[in-house]
């Protein structure tokens, strides 16, 4: 499925015309990735022989790099109303309850500063600005100049069919930095793209459906 509005579709078509290899185009490409599957496919399609685009989300493409950007994403269905999940997420201080590697979150206005723990005692500061906020539907963010990682992402909420609750869909694109920091970030996101996203969304589902996060720990100190 692709979930594009008419407006998004028009933007995608425009961007497709503009997209050429090179720095400026990459920025456009990144925007495209977050718009939805088809657009990302078409961006990817410019480097490959043309085939008709299929209906799958762009992040499931066989090639997962788009220019300098790596894209990861995941969907989960949560048996709770759309608005409840949006509200929970929109209070960013809640995110550290289910996202394993968030050390701290400070939000002031549209700007949020995230300290993300990385292996071997490292920490990475990510600063983001909210670029879209539609209550009950979507929250999108993009990193600012102050951020140590160049990243962009969004979370979308829509009613699941058959009264199954809400489909929560996240897409995150990031450009792995060079050097030491790059290596840290690579381990942070782990080899397989989406491992963190997948685990995090499962924990979110547990928390919102059952009120707790499953663990096999037998003791509080263990």
């Amino acid at each position, binding site marked *: 499925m692709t979930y594009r509005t008419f407006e998004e579709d028009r933007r995608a078509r425009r961007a497709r015309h503009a997209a050429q290899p090179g720095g400026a185009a990459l920025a456009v490409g990144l925007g495209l990735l977050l718009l939805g599957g088809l657009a990302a496919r078409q961006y990817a399609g410019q480097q490959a022989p043309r085939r008709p685009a299929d209906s799958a989300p762009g992040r499931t493409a066989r090639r997962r790099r788009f220019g300098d950007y790596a894209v990861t994403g995941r969907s989960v*269905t949560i*048996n709770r109303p759309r608005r409840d999940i949006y509200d929970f997420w929109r209070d960013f201080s809640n995110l550290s309850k289910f996202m394993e590697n968030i050390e701290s979150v400070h939000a002031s206005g549209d700007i949020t500063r995230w300290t993300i723990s990385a292996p071997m005692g490292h920490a990475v500061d990510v600063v983001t600005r909210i670029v879209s906020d539609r209550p009950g539907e979507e929250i999108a963010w993009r990193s600012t100049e102050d951020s140590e990682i160049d990243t962009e992402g969004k979370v979308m909420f829509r009613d699941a069919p058959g009264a*199954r*609750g809400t489909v929560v869909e996240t897409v995150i694109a990031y450009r792995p930095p060079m050097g030491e920091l790059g290596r840290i970030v690579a381990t942070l996101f782990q080899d397989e793209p989406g*491992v963190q996203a*997948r*685990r*995090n969304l*499962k*924990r979110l*589902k*547990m928390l919102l*459906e*059952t*009120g*707790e*996060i*499953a*663990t*096999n*720990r*037998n*003791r*509080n100190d*263990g």
Partner: protein
Amino acid sequence: MRALTYHGSHDVRVDTVPDPEIVNPRDAIIEVTSTAICGSDLHLYDGVIPGVMSGDILGHEFMGRVVETGSGSTLKKGQRVVVPFTISCGQCFHCKMQQFSACDNSNPAEKQDLTEPLYGHPLSGLFGYSHLTGGYPGGQAEYVRVPFSDVGPIVIPEGMDDDEVLFLSDILPTGWMAAENADITEGDTVAVWGCGPVGLFAVQSARIMGAHQVIAIDHHPHRLELARLMGAKVIDYTQTHVLEALMEMTGGIGPDAVIDAVGMESHGFAPDNVFDTIKQKVGIGADAPHALRMAIMAVRKGGRISMPGVYGGFADKFPLGALMEKGLQLRTGQTHVQRYTKDLLRRIQEGEIDTTFLISHRLPLEEAPRGYANFKNNQNEWTKVVLKPGTAAV
């Protein structure tokens, strides 16, 4: 506390380990009064299910007294409960549909990574059954931390013996669901492979559900005798050509439904089975589905296959052609225990179902390793072992 822990294939020991505590709000701590060894534990014991680590506490069939409750538990201290081996949240999509063994929320997120590549979807949490199903400390121990204690455990009225109700934790509902999956109607013949606890309860359940005849297949004389007591006709596969006999005992039609209560470690010296057993020993994740193959060959055209027996990996020479060409249906799964406990408890109270006939040995927890060895090697006489924590070793 004392607990039965895994140290390698055919090496289990009773060790002293830290007592469990309440970790999540919906937890309860149970002081175990009875816990059994299951055929499924033998798959772990034999090392044919991966993901068991040294020091893991085994056991998934247990009951006891509530000694501590978290803020979200609905249990009360002092209550006696039987705990389903399936850990289920009660609130996810699958739990709402009563597919409790498919619960989305009971296997810790990082453990789900182990089975998602293997099966396409992650498994749910089970007690004491490898890290594939969560790595939860099991029930062959003095105490157990029971997650989601507000939905799983069933409270047992005072006055009923442990022996009468312990098997509500697994094998009784498993036998029942096996018969339910066979979709029995009047006049049906049901053939059951394996007269272990699961097979025997499947025989009993199939009779209650109105099967015209139930035919049980095994090679242990005493186990076959128990099946006869449960109302089955029996076939000893070391004496009889099973397929021929089944055709002759059904007027040339074949059984309407077949139940594989053997699972991945089928016995016997048929060529396919010898080959499978060797592959299993060299450890390539292969199952030994000899009994299942036979069941598929035996069942009548358009018939039903119910498969409570556990498999973990891949099967060779699976008679896919017979499945398709005969238009068969196959139903299986870890039991949705919570779906059946209330109804089965009532049937026990009303005297319709007896479970005590099965128990051949009661041992102190301290003697669990001896229980494992005998339940594996002396299957004929050791039909079911119940362990009693807190009693002295003999």
